[in-house]
């Protein structure tokens, strides 16, 4: 259906306006102008910021430069989460553009994974796809693919090629019609105020009675506080790709259309702004 493909495209081409500024403590030879960039929501920070790095290296001495990392209002940003998830989770009610601070020293080893090269991002991305396929099809689809097919998924993401990526990814989105959906839905629920990085459990798209599970059903089971009681004010926003889907949205359709390229449905539960 045509409008479903429009949804896939809108998800793929989502952008976040971002202003990068150099951390004040960095030693520079001359003043560094801020750098502005539209960041792809579905990609990874360290994959799309080559230009940011180049821009700030121009004003720095080589010996003052260690591994680059990013911070938003005191929070180190995890490059292994998709960019859209970082924004929705930490900054969705901020004034645009999103203001990120760039660091070249004091790498926070306790909070962040190192990212010495793009092959580390590729390995992380592919392991997510494999984990998702293990949940959806007991790994059958991803194992039937060839090495070059895996490469096509990664190159599609890296080079922002929607058609190249989806030519392969649609195989990962198929399921037997008689089952009405995947075996389990690959999802992760993120919350700001938690020691747990995210909630991830087994959840089927169809109930034992054969009815389709909705986003509301998932939350009722995983995060009941996210659903307002009758007559109560909404305490949380449930955000996927920067929007709030209705709770009656079928989970199987969400998994097929609003997952990230890593094949997971990343769901952010954030407190409703009070002002």
């Amino acid at each position, binding site marked *: 259906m045509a409008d479903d493909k429009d*949804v896939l495209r809108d998800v793929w081409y*989502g952008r976040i306006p971002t202003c990068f500024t150099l951390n004040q403590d960095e030693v520079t030879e001359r003043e560094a*102008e801020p750098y502005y960039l*539209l960041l792809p929501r579905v990609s990874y920070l360290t994959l799309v910021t080559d230009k940011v790095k180049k821009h700030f290296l121009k004003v720095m001495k080589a010996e003052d430069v260690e591994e680059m990392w990013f911070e938003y209002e005191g929070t180190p940003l995890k490059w292994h989460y998709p960019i859209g998830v970082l924004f929705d989770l930490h900054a969705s009610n901020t004034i*645009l553009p999103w203001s990120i601070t760039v660091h070249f020293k004091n790498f926070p080893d306790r909070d962040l994974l190192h990212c010495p090269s793009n092959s580390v991002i590729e390995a992380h991305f592919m392991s997510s796809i494999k984990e998702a396929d293990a949940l959806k099809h007991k790994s059958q689809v991803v194992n039937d693919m060839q090495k070059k097919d895996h490469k096509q998924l990664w190159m599609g993401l890296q080079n922002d090629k929607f058609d190249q990526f989806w030519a392969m990814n649609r195989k990962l989105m198929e399921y037997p019609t008689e089952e009405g959906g995947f075996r389990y839905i690959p999802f992760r629920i993120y919350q700001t105020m938690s020691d747990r990085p995210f909630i991830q459990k087994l959840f089927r798209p169809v109930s034992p009675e054969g009815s389709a599970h909705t986003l509301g059903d998932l939350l009722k089971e995983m995060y009941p506080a996210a659903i307002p009681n009758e007559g109560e004010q909404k305490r949380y926003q449930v955000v996927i790709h920067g929007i709030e889907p*209705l709770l009656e*949205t079928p989970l199987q359709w969400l998994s097929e259309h609003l997952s990230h390229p890593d094949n997971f449905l990343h769901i952010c539960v954030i407190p409703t702004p009070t002002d």
Partner: protein
Amino acid sequence: MSSGAKIMVWKRHISEQLKLRDRVQRQPFEEIFHQYNRLLEKSDLQAVLSERYQADKYEVQRGHEASSGS
């Protein structure tokens, strides 16, 4: 029945919200970021050129001093 009537409420909601999101987060910034980055490139080029100009001037001066000294 028109095809539009068949679209479920939840699906139309998602399409509309995604369009609205792009109207707020993407479209207002595309052109201005592009223009800013062009300016940044120009000012970088200027910095490189003026450094080179300074270096040339220094070279010329040294050349003069060397020839007048001999």
